[in-house]
């Protein structure tokens, strides 16, 4: 690979944040798994002057399973998710996405924070995290802040992270009792493929009514997004096939897909609707 750059390999978080902070006039990029970044550098889409390797920053690893909340470090890999039984129980959609996330080697190195920070509209881990009401912690050498993942994306490949910040932590509340959380990845093949349409759903029910609805979609708009109007249609109601159809149509209407090499906008809209209807319907059936 021809791409002259310098590489710092800090051994702790303050070191990493300091390395990111002093980029006077330089393009400095953090690199964790590198599964997106190395590809972009090789293709000369990214031309960093300096990279900050996060591989030895152990503060960014680890998972906490509290009574109310689950938190994972930014450098948690996709394989780490798959190896955690508690994630399988508490965030099944995340497991659905993680299983079909790249191949084994990419899952072993690709990180949750990296997937979020890539800003890709096809970032598979994001719809599940959105339906879990995930919150991000962003740290720089000077400050630490938290924000809802839902507020993180500003536009196509534009996000709220400043160049000197790292996503250090991703946290979300445990699912309520009687909830279903699932993700469906539609792609042009089953193994190791970029998503054409991805839909994640969280549905909770009590007393025959939907108490919480979260619907998030990827690859059908410039950013991964929550279909809030569709969610609003469902919350507080007993779901019927007609209502589910209506919500699915709302979700599809909220999509702003494009034609690309994988599919047309029309097909994406069609499958956004079909898959939202399917996932909400299946979730409701399981809750009933």
């Amino acid at each position, binding site marked *: 690979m*021809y791409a*002259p750059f310098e590489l710092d390999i800090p051994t702790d978080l303050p070191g990493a944040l300091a390395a990111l902070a002093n980029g006077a006039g330089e393009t400095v990029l953090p690199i964790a798994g590198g599964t997106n970044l190395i590809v972009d550098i090789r293709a000369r889409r990214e031309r960093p002057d300096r990279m900050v390797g996060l591989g030895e920053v152990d503060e960014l690893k680890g998972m906490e399973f509290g009574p109310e909340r689950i938190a994972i470090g930014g450098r948690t890999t996709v394989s780490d998710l798959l190896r955690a039984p508690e994630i399988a129980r508490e965030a099944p959609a995340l497991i659905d996405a993680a299983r079909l996330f790249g191949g084994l080697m990419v899952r072993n190195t690709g990180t949750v924070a990296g997937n979020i920070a890539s800003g890709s509209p096809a970032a598979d881990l994001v719809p599940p995290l959105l339906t879990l009401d995930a919150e991000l912690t962003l740290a720089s050498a000077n400050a630490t802040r938290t924000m809802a993942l839902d507020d993180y994306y500003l536009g196509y490949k534009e996000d709220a992270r400043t160049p000197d910040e790292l996503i250090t932590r991703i946290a979300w509340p445990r699912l309520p009792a009687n909830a279903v959380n699932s993700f469906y990845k539609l792609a*042009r*093949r089953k*193994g*190791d493929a*970029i998503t054409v349409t991805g839909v994640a759903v969280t549905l909770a029910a009590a007393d025959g009514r939907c108490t919480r609805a979260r619907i998030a979609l990827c690859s059908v708009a410039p950013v991964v997004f929550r279909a809030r109007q569709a969610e609003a249609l469902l919350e507080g109601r007993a779901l019927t096939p007609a209502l589910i159809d209506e919500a699915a149509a709302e979700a599809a209407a909220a999509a702003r897909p494009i034609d690309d090499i994988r*599919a047309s906008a029309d*097909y994406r809209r069609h499958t956004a609707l079909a898959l939202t209807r399917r996932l909400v319907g299946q979730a409701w059936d399981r809750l009933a």
Partner: protein
Amino acid sequence: MSRTESDAGARPNVQFRQVGKPLTRTDAPGKVTGRTPYAGDYVMPNTLHMRVLRADVASARLTRLDVSKARALKGVACVLTAADMPDRTSATDIPGQTGQKRLDTDQPILVKDRVRYFGEPLALIAAETRDIADHAAELIEFELEPIPGVYDPLEALKPGAALVYGADNIVAERKIRKGDIEAGFAEADLVIENTYKTPFQEHAFLEPEVGLAWVDENDVVNIRVSTQVIEHFRPIADAIGVPHNKVRVRGALVGGGFGGKEDLTVEVYLALLAKHTGRPVRLEYSREDSFVGHGKRHPFVLTYRTGVTNEGKITAMDVQMIADAGAYVFLSPYVVLYALVAAPGPYRVDNLNVFARAVATNNMYTSAFRGFGALQACAAYEQQMDEIAGTLGIDRLELRRRNFLKTGEPMSTGFVPPSAIWTEQCAEQAWAALGEPAPVQGPIRTGRGLACYQQSYGRLTFLHDTSEAWVGVEMDGTVVVRSGVTDIGAGQISALGQIAVEVLGVTLDNVVIYNSDSAVTPLAGTTTATRALYMTGNAAKQAAETLRARLVERAAREFGVEAGDVDMAFNEVFVIDRPEKTMPLVNLVRICAAEGIHRSELAIFRAPFGDFLDPETGQGQAHPDYAYGAHAVEVSVDVETGEVEVLKSIAAHDVGQCINPAAVEGQIQGGAQNGQGYALSEEMLYEEGRLVTPSFSEYLMPTAMDMPRVECIILESRSGVGPFGAKGIGEPAMTAVAPAIANAVADAIGVRVFEMPITPERVVRALQQRDAS
């Protein structure tokens, strides 16, 4: 996952000791331990690293090319452009040893003024390191002034279309005129016409094109390269302007070929820079280079008009085929010839018109790919058979049964294949093996499909193909085979060893095969056209048999018996049924050596030689022989998303005679993957000739999660013209897979997608169109 069925009656008393056994291939241990050097793994001191700079548009005039900054970069040894070399072209002629040459088919080695396809080479760089070569490429300045191009073969045929070259864009036209087409259609109760489209396909071998070249002490340019054809030394020599005996191509075990390393790839560039710099040079294509660095499978548009009786008997068939040849000719004239010959498939069609054309466009050039035109024909004729069966309400297998070409009957060209035609047995067994259908669940429908095929093995007979092999016994009783044949992963050289040791009664661990060196191994021709086993296997068998006869004759004298009473097995020589009369082979070899009896043999095998097919009628012999078989699949289709999953994939092939069943199964299973990708997921998308899917994350071949276990049913008619009655399986393994899948999808959803790949989107659109009408 497989079973083998032989027709014991075909050749009684066949008792092989080595042949027909799933022995561990001779090349396997090195490959699984990482010990096998591929062409890219050889290093030499003082090597320069090369890079090819390519055009980034498909149709343009090169108005400026300034390499001065690149040349000035420290560490750059050489930058070559068209201006720096004699006005030479690189032959895109049919490769091999026959000397046949076409007109006007050659590509300039580097663009002089006109760019005809995206990725056409503009300049060659050699530098001390790959980093420097890459940096130098960024410093080359060039301007390309766009010229209107043509990107669709149907458009290219229209009057006034942009010309790729010549007076029109027609690269080749072939036809068959057989029987009385009008009378045939008059006899029909029903005429069914459909148009089918097949796509580009990338070979996607895992090893990108790579080679290392140096000039030796005899001023010979040596090229160690990943190729299917070491006999390219001739066109390489012509291209760089040296005598043929001054180029030596040494192959290596090839990391996948499938036809994509049949044409020249990196060889001429390497030879030029080795000559220019006087230093070893290495060129390894990146994956992106590889996508534009070798020809693709021809997309075809095929229109089938078939006349049938109410009973399902085909009375007439009119076929029009148009193939996209891309920007240079390469093997297009031969690909359409194969498609022409294969047009009616394994069916008896006495009234047949076929018109096949290859048309130039500014798309990537197209050339050889496993199946070579015959596969595209199969994709259409087998879908057409299902369309006919559906219209007539006849069972799909039964319709085929009523039309199968039988052993001894004349095929499309009037030629009677010399071997058995077991299509029906194959079809019945594959179909039956599907077993119980999977249940339908909600939006998930299931369907089944069958496809049968006819595929040649061996090259076109007018090419006068020959192959040589040398077999010798060493002083310690071990065996050496020498033959120029390249091994592209199918076990070509291990099969030669298995054949030689069968004849010589030696175990496989006692043989070493030296192969693919154009200077020192006997020239064996190409590893293409499903010919390696047929041609070189016959040559090795012939050499081994002659050697055996000589050894046995001497042994018989030693034992005081007739030669016919002597046998050789397990490294021993013995008199049949006389256990006391035995000696180790090594003793016999020493006797022969002491007496000056020749312990080796060089044999040449000649395929049947023929003339070109009659240009007006297409009648005559095109190939030595044909293979037949069938593929059956079961799929599920999600009617909401259009996703297709292949649940079962079952192949039944008459391979004539297995040399190594594990290798045969491997070919079949790999063919199933190639065919499944072709049918469903592999798509090369071009925008104005520019490839927009140049990576394995965009060009999607089936992964381990997409492939079912592929079941193989191997039939052995022992009727082929290869060694021991073998046919060939390299190309046949793939031919029928895609139409079987297409037929299964149509069966599942009740509507056909006439264009491959059958993407989820095309499935959804077909369903929407049906619902709308």
